[in-house]
């Protein structure tokens, strides 16, 4: 019986892959129906893994071929994996429902390229992500990362325009550079310790040059794939240019794969090797991502680019937990902070998918997504705008959202460990998020000068899928309250809490007013700041700057680990 439940780990990886293989043969309309059929199966498998884990309370382990590591490969699922498996399954299902309207091969019609490729790639992304979450071997993880990249890149250029092909090529080349650095680190670890199994390595690894070099190389390699500032060279054009359903996959899910691996490495492989200063730098990059991503988001003329830049800011958030998760002895530990970080990842995955879907619907309905010309959209497509607004609220961390709870946990940890600067970043980040959400909402709520011309009626089902994900994210706090210690949230509706929310809105409105491209107030200094950020961003997104930054960061991480090591 036990082997049965643990076999779910294999099925979680195989189900999407088998769906893809069979779908490739069936072709056209039958492939997409098979893909749609695979979605609930995968969801059930993920739920099954989560349920087993909750019941037994210990990590699920499956030895492939019956061979134990170091010789064989083990699949493992702990709480982290189970949560991510489930979250990804939910988001993929919603995206599947959403994409039916955009990517549908009519029965009997000859097989069309884009729908066929989309459904296969959706399954490919899913299987690869599941593999990332359950694999316990660093080399298998390398293959999983490559699988993920190879399935994500074609999603970027599904429409085949030159602009998106260029974005896809940039993405592929930069991601490949990242995977090579990751592989280099894994090779060094094998040379030093003779195994690639995560739990065996955790027992053997010591703070010494090989481990530092490996940690630094693998970390920056993964950061390049996650597009953490200043390595976000590829993200804006790729995420903004892709079709909406694909953008949702890329922005909500794909970047989480490499982020998850950073978490695995730091928390589970080498918690004794990474040091507090290196964690401070990692979170520092996150803080920079929040500021730059948000400000540049405010400067965008197009909605999808705004959402793409907001992804850069939100990725920054995911790295704030690292310095807060150290215990008194200076080691990274699993605990409330990691739960908070995970919660943030899940709420971002759901909210960002919802947001991209909503943006895509707006684009489809209007035939453009110029923010300045969105007046009247709220009246024309209320459900879509509601989905966008709720996603925005969830990202800001308004009361029942997962991001709210995550923020609470981290604020608690920041004050508990005396790291006041992260308190500032956490609070300020919400203001920045409020900035671009308010900017968009103000524009869609404006009264139009004439009647709004809709070039296409959007599917109600798609609107509901976006709304569903947004609501998921907004109500995540309820789902997560179980495993979180109760004292963190005393009374979410206390005047103090509501006051903070209000302040966040107000700050956001001010930011939007000052920094937005069409700043009517024309506050010279603030406008200048916005332009400066935009130019800095453009400079950092040039290939030479980004790749030099990649290697410099590797050197910095290595040095910080070396310098901070206990003598």
């Amino acid at each position: 019986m036990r082997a049965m439940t643990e076999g779910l780990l294999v099925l979680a990886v195989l189900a999407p892959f088998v769906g893809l293989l069979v779908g490739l043969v069936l072709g056209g309309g039958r492939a997409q129906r098979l893909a749609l059929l695979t979605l609930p199966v995968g969801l059930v498998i993920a739920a099954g893994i989560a349920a087993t884990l909750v019941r037994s309370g210990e990590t699920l382990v499956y030895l492939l071929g019956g061979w134990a590591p170091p010789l064989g490969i083990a699949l493992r699922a702990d709480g982290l994996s189970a949560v991510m498996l489930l979250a990804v399954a939910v988001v993929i299902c919603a995206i599947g429902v959403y994409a039916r309207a955009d990517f549908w091969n009519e029965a009997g019609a000859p097989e069309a390229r884009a729908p066929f490729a989309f459904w296969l790639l959706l399954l490919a992304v899913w299987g690869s992500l599941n593999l990332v979450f359950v694999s316990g071997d660093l080399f298998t993880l390398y293959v999983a990362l490559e699988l993920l990249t190879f399935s994500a890149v074609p999603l970027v250029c599904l429409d085949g325009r030159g602009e998106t092909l260029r974005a896809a090529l940039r993405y592929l080349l930069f991601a490949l550079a990242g995977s090579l650095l990751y592989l280099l680190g894994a090779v060094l670890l094998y040379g030093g310790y003779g195994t690639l199994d995560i739990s065996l390595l955790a027992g053997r690894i010591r703070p010494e040059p090989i481990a530092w070099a490996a940690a630094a190389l693998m970390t920056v390699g993964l950061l390049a794939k996650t597009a953490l500032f200043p390595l976000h060279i590829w993200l804006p054009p790729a995420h903004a240019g892709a079709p909406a359903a694909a953008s949702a996959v890329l922005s909500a899910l794909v970047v989480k794969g490499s982020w998850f691996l950073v978490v695995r490495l730091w928390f589970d492989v080498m918690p004794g090797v990474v040091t507090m200063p290196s964690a401070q730098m990692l979170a520092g990059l996150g803080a920079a991502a929040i500021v730059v991503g948000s400000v540049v988001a405010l400067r965008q003329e197009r909605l999808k680019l705004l959402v793409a830049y907001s992804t850069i800011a939100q990725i920054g958030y995911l790295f704030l937990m690292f310095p807060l998760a150290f215990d008194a002895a200076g080691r990274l530990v699993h605990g409330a902070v990691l739960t908070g970080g995970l919660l943030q990842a899940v709420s971002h995955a759901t909210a960002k998918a919802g947001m991209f879907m909503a943006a895509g619907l707006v684009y489809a309905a209007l035939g453009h997504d110029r923010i300045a010309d969105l007046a009247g959209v709220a009246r024309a497509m209320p459900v879509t705008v509601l989905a966008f607004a709720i996603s925005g609220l969830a990202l800001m961390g308004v009361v029942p959202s997962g991001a709210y709870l995550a923020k609470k946990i981290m604020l608690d940890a920041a004050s508990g460990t005396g790291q006041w600067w992260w308190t500032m970043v956490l609070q300020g980040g919400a203001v920045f998020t409020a900035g671009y959400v308010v900017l968009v909402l103000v524009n869609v709520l404006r009264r139009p000068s004439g009647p709004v011309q809709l070039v296409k009626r959007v599917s109600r089902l798609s609107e509901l899928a976006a709304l569903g994900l947004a609501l998921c994210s907004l109500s995540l706090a309820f789902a997560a309250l179980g495993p979180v210690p109760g004292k963190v949230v005393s009374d979410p509706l206390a005047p103090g809490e509501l006051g903070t929310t209000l302040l966040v809105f107000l700050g956001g409105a001010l930011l939007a007013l000052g920094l937005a491209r069409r700043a009517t107030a024309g506050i010279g200094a603030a406008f200048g700041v916005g332009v400066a950020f935009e130019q800095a961003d453009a400079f950092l997104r040039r290939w030479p700057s980004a790749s030099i930054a990649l290697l410099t960061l590797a050197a910095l991480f290595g040095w910080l680990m070396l310098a901070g090591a206990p003598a």
Partner: protein
Amino acid sequence: MNVPTLFGLCAAALVGIGLYGLIVDPHPLRKILAFNVVGSGVFVLFGAIARRGAAAGMGGDPVPQALLITGIVVAFSATALAVALLKRLSDEAGSVTLSSDAPARAKSDAGHD
């Protein structure tokens, strides 16, 4: 100096040479080439590590050697995908530049229509 160390150092140099090309050469095809040079450097390093692990009558540790075969195949797949993308980009856009000005130009075009 023994053979694995010699080739290990050679691998370190190959990685550096490839990375330099990956950074400075603007042509995507040359970047793909440089990616392959870095990749082969990583592989040679792994090969040297495998050779160091010679034991039990085997000339090298068979686990890394097996992983290397997988690694070479994965690198080939990456190259094939990148080359296909590059050719298609050249057909579609008539230019293969990766510079970030290109999307910016397209953005302002979208603003005018």
